[in-house]
């Protein structure tokens, strides 16, 4: 039994498809063009996205001069100069002190007592030996 819905469907087919004849064409220009353009746009968009991504990733590649500050040991020049100054002064003082030698003090053992007569005799002997001064 054919129902109402199938009758309406058949009628639509008859009216909308070339006035009753089934469409047996292979090529539908609009359809083919649509599909082609669709795929073209798809490939173009996907390709552009991939190319853009690659470009953004690698556009900033360059040889950057790095900072070698952390790789070499720090030389504390101020500390070295202070230490040198201190040791130079110390050495100077050291040299000065080494230059001063305290002479050894020899203690006097005994003192000899001279008698008054012997003192007079020695003075007389010394007086004979004095040269005369000519006027």
């Amino acid at each position, binding site marked *: 039994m054919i129902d109402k819905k199938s009758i309406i469907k058949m009628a639509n087919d008859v009216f909308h498809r070339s006035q009753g004849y089934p469409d*047996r064409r*292979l090529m539908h220009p609009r359809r083919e063009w649509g599909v082609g353009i669709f*795929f073209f746009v798809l*490939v173009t968009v996907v*390709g552009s996205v*991939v*190319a853009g991504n*690659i470009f953004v*990733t*690698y556009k900033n*590649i*360059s*040889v*950057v*001069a*790095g*900072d*070698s500050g952390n*790789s*070499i040991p720090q*030389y504390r*020049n101020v500390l*070295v*100069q202070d*230490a*040198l100054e201190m*040791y130079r002064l*110390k*050495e100077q*003082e*050291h040299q000065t*002190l*080494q230059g*001063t*030698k*305290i002479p*050894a*003090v020899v*203690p006097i053992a005994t003192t000899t007592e001279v008698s008054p007569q012997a003192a007079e005799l020695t003075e007389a002997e010394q007086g004979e030996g004095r040269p005369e001064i000519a006027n």
Partner: protein
Amino acid sequence: MITKKTKVVGISSALFFLAACAGMFFLGQYVQNEGEKLVKQTKEVEDFNMREQSYRELSNLIDSTQEDRSELNKYILTEEKTIDFLSTIEQIAIDQGVELTTNSLHISEETGMFDALTISFSVAGLQQQVETMLQIFETLPYHAFVSDITFQYSKTEGVKMLRGTIELTVSILQHDR
């Protein structure tokens, strides 16, 4: 109607399309790989340049500080210089006319690059000479100090004599650390 030619054209165009897609995919992969290689090479060049720069800076630093470091080295006592140091001390005593005998030598380990060398001397002589020698010890151009003194004063025929022990501590550099 679908003819044989239509089928051939259809299949060949589909294959051509797939080949083009595959080509594009591999091209993208190739560019990506080459980009990664470029990044790696750039990094290697940067590392090389940095190493070269570090070497140049270190060489300049070594050359420019050679004099100061040599001079500073004179004031640092090492194990190799210990014998000469003791000879210097003995010579100082001889120059000052003081009798000096080395009693003991002791190295105590400390944190850092320096250990402490402690030398104990017995001294005897005129008070002034011993005191001058003590001053000379205190002004030795090393990281040194007189850590202990024990003196006995005496007077012989009006002359002040001094006898005792002096302990001298000097920092000694350990190259192993």
